[in-house]
Each structure stands twice: as structure tokens, then as C-alpha cells.
């Protein structure tokens, strides 16, 4: 229960209401940014002509710009209220920034992410003037843009984690629920932004030595977000809920980006390229069965105390198991079914088994143990985030 006086609790709750509304709004624009980038990748792959003023650009630059504007608004208003001494806005509920501003940390992070995104956008325009317009996802400014998208999403995770911690501190459940749902959505937004890097892993960096880079990235980054959520909440369900939001976003991208590309090309009277992809480039790279490892994670971490395992020990083990299963069902389903049923494997499968499947499984185990530790610490960090 809270040690705060009732008036202070009321003021703190009012401030939380404001922050949660702003957080949901900023997160909406972060999702819009993700979908805009996914659409842009599809547009360049299937149709292609480019100026700054295309609809996909409007979506992703608009998404990040408006997320940034909301954050700027929250930072400025919180700073002003802090200086006026408004109840609920004080040293306990705000973080100092640059010695000038006071604001909840998540809004500062997403605001900086938006600023970074726009700077990378300018860098991209300049880059084209120096190195020409070679449309490829792997270019220095594009890596900057995609990383800035990650920062945007990390900020939203902090916004909701902070409000969840504050609600817990006040000893109330009323705002804990929207904060938790928001956190699961923000983690899904983070994973969606990560998915752009998965396209690079599929198209450009397929293997690190014998290990499949895609599966290593999924283990590390998806493990970080899913287990981080579990370590934060300490109640089963958040990993599954995160995977559910992620799957919904994936379905939107899967059907939405090819549809939007076709509709936009048709509106502009432009035909498709001869070598158009026509399948959703980003959505295809997003893990299709994330719900499976998420359920395993929730289940195993919930069972761990009954088995007498400390969470810090159970978490990496659960993550390794979940990610090994994810790899087998998402990337090697054909091999697994042939192993389970007496159907002879084709020669290329046997070759791949030795050359890539076994080394990748080993890589997932090592990465899962390291990331299990890292993700748990990430969740603990979020538990200590309340301003």
C-alpha cells in the first residue's frame, strides 16, 4: 500500500492519467512509423519511383515526427509544472534532463528517437546526393533510421513501465491494468521495429560462420523483449499478450503493405516492376509463430517457483527452451516433421542439418543463456523505473 497522503495519491493518479494517454498516443504513432517503413520497403521493391513526397514516407516521417511532438509537449508541460510546484510533478515523479527540463524518462527517450530519425532522414537525402540513389536497405543512413525507430519504441516501453511501477507504488490496480496492456503493446512495437533488421538478416547477412544470423537475432532481441516483460511483471501472461499484439501487427503488415502498394501504384497509374516481390517483404521476415515461444516462456517462468528454481536461474533456461522450439517450428518445421515421422530426409536437408541447423541450435543455446541474464536485468531495470 502507498505511504503517500490521500491528496498526494490523487495528484499522482491524475498525473498518471495524463501520462498514460500521452503514452498510448505516442505509441500509436510509433506503430504508424513501423507500418510506414514496411510499406516503403514494399514500394521500393515492387514499384519503386521515389521522391521525398511519397505516401509511405509521409506515414513513417509523420509517425515519428508526431510521436516526437507529443513527447516534446509532455516534456515542456512537465517542466513548467515542476517549476510551478504543481502537485504530482516533483523530484519523485520526474527525471532531470540537461539541467533544464524535468520529464518522465520514456518521453525523453522517444523524443530523442524522433529527433534522431529526422536527422538520419536528412542524412539520407544528403547521402543520395553524394553516393547516388541506390535503393538498398543496407546503407549508413538507413541503419540510422532503423535504429532511431528502435529508440522510439524503447521510449514507449519506459513510458508504460514507469506508469505500472507508479501504480504499484500507490498500491492501486486501476491504472496498473492499462499500464500493463500498454507495456505489452510497446514491447510488440519494439519487436516490430526490430523486424526491419530481420529483413537485412534474410537478404544480406544470412550466416555468421555456420550460424543462421536471423535465428540468432530473433533469440537475442525477441528474447530480450519477451523475457524482459516477464521479469518486469512477474505474473504469467505478458509474453503471450506481447506476442499476440505482435502477431496482429504482422497480419496487418502481411496483408496491408502489398494491398497499399497495389492501391497506391494503381492510383498513380504505375505498373509493377518486372521483378516485383509481390509478397509482404517485412511481414514475411517477422516470426510467424511467436505465440509458441511466448506461451512456453510464460508457462515455464510461472512453474519455476514450484520446481524450487530461482527466477534468475529459471529465466535463461526457459528462454533457451522457448527459442529452440521457436527455431524448430518456425525455421525447420520440415526437418522436424521428417524426424518425427519415418519420412526420408532429402539430401539438402541432411547437408543443412550438419552445416547450419546444429551450429545454429548451439548458437541459440549460448545466446539464450546470455540474453536470459540480460533480459532479466532489463526487466528489473524497468521495475526500478518510475519517473
Amino acid at each position, binding site marked *: 500500500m502507498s505511504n503517500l497522503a490521500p491528496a498526494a495519491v490523487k495528484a499522482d493518479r491524475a498525473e498518471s492519467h495524463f501520462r498514460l494517454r500521452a503514452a498510448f498516443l505516442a505509441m500509436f504513432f510509433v506503430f504508424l512509423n513501423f507500418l510506414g517503413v514496411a510499406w516503403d520497403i514494399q514500394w521500393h521493391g515492387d514499384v519503386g519511383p521515389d521522391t521525398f513526397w511519397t505516401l509511405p514516407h509521409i506515414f513513417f516521417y509523420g509517425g515519428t515526427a508526431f510521436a516526437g511532438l507529443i513527447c516534446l509537449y509532455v516534456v515542456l508541460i512537465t517542466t513548467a509544472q515542476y517549476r510551478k510546484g504543481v502537485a504530482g510533478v516533483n523530484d519523485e515523479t520526474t527525471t532531470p534532463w540537461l539541467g533544464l527540463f524535468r520529464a518522465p524518462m520514456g518521453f525523453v527517450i522517444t523524443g530523442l528517437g524522433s529527433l534522431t530519425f529526422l536527422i538520419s532522414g536528412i542524412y539520407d537525402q544528403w547521402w543520395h546526393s553524394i553516393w547516388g540513389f541506390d535503393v538498398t536497405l543496407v546503407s549508413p543512413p538507413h541503419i540510422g533510421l532503423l535504429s*532511431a525507430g528502435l529508440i522510439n519504441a524503447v521510449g514507449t516501453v519506459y513510458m508504460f513501465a514507469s506508469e505500472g511501477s507508479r501504480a504499484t507504488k500507490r498500491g492501486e490496480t486501476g491504472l496498473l491494468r492499462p499500464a500493463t496492456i500498454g507495456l505489452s503493446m510497446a514491447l510488440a512495437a519494439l519487436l516490430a521495429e526490430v523486424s526491419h533488421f530481420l529483413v537485412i538478416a534474410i537478404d544480406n547477412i544470412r550466416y555468421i560462420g555456420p550460424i543462421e544470423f536471423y535465428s540468432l537475432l530473433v533469440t537475442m532481441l525477441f528474447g530480450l523483449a519477451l523475457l524482459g516483460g516477464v521479469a518486469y511483471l512477474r505474473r504469467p501472461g505478458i509474453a503471450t499478450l506481447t506476442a499476440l499484439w505482435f502477431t496482429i501487427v504482422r497480419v496487418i503488415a502481411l496483408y496491408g503493405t502489398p494491398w497499399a502498394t497495389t492501391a497506391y501504384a494503381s492510383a498513380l497509374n504505375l505498373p509493377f516492376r518486372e521483378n516485383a516481390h509481390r509478397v509482404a517483404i517485412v511481414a514475411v521476415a517477422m516470426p510467424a509463430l511467436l505465440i509458441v515461444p511466448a506461451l512456453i516462456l510464460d508457462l515455464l517462468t510461472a512453474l519455476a517457483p514450484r520446481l524450487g528454481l530461482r527466477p534468475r536461474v529459471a529465466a535463461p533456461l526457459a528462454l533457451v527452451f522457448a527459442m529452440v522450439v521457436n527455431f524448430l517450428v518456425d525455421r525447420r518445421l520440415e526437418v522436424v516433421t521428417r524426424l518425427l515421422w519415418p519420412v526420408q530426409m532429402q539430401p539438402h536437408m541432411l547437408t543443412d542439418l550438419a552445416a547450419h541447423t546444429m551450429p545454429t541450435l548451439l548458437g541459440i543455446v549460448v545466446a539464450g543463456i546470455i540474453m536470459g541474464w540480460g533480459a532479466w536485468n532489463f526487466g528489473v531495470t524497468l521495475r526500478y523505473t518510475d519517473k
Partner: protein
Amino acid sequence: MLRKLAPTLFALMLLVAVPSAALAHNSPGWTMVHTEKVQAGPYTLYIENNEWPVLAQKATPYHVEADGGIANLTVKYRWVPGPAITAKPVTGQLHTDPGVKDAFYLLRSGVPVAGAWHWEFEVDGPKGHATGRSEDFMAGPPPAFPMWLGWLVGFYPVYGLIWFIFREGARRRRAMRLDEGARA
């Protein structure tokens, strides 16, 4: 205030999106400044590009036209290095592009190193199979802003993320010391 801000921002986005969307049609809008004629058997090809001389590694858009049009033609190309430079040939197939009429469109990173190069074409069409090559062209050195510096700058958000991870680790440890890990 937030209730007003959200729809205002969304409306603003749509307001910008609707008129701007049509501008995409204006691209690529290259102005071609150089044309090279290549005879490949019965086929006469014209290579056009928007920059001359070209620079190594710099992406330059090319249009490749043919006397009698490009319909029913399949064209493979090779950039072949001259004897004075050590580099591998660059190969590919020409494709049409929605934004370019009556020509193949090629947009890719320029030849890998500076020096003398030439085009080779392999054309298949109604008049049969034929090959041809262009005169040598000199590719200048790559752009003055080096690629490695580009990557160094491009990764700047990642440096921020790495710094943030370490900062958050330190904040977590400090907080855990203060409450003896009560929330951990």
C-alpha cells in the same frame, strides 16, 4: 489538450499526405546528359545516364533504349574492367521500370574501382541472339566522402543505445543498493 492534439496531428498528416502523394509520380525525373551507342548484331542500343564522367561506386541511373523499342528483348549486361585494373566484372539483367517508358532502367552501385571499363551486352529478341560491346569509359575515383566514414556517422543512434544500456545498468545497480534489491 491531448484530446485535441491527437486528432489535430492526424488531420495534419492526412492534409500533407493527400496532395504530396501525387508527387511520387514525378520521379525519378533524371536528366540524361550522356548517350553511348552500342551495336549488338542487328540490335542498336543506346545507354544514357545522368552523370558524366561516372564515379566508381556511385549509384547512377541508366536508361538503355533500342532502335525499334525494347518490347520482346531480353538483355543481359556486363561491366568489364580494362586490363590495367584488377577487378571482377559486374553482371546482371536489364529490367523495365514503372517510372521509365520505352527503355530498360538500371540503378545500382557504380563500377567497383576507378579506371577503364566497358559494357558488354547479350541480347535475345525477334532477330535472334547477339552480343556487343561499348567503347571504353573512364570511371573516376569514388566520392570524396568515404564509405567507412558514412558508416561511422550512420551508426550514431546505435552509439546512443549502447551508452543508454550501460547507463541503465549503472542506474539499476545503484537503485538495488539503495533498497537492497527489494523491487528486484
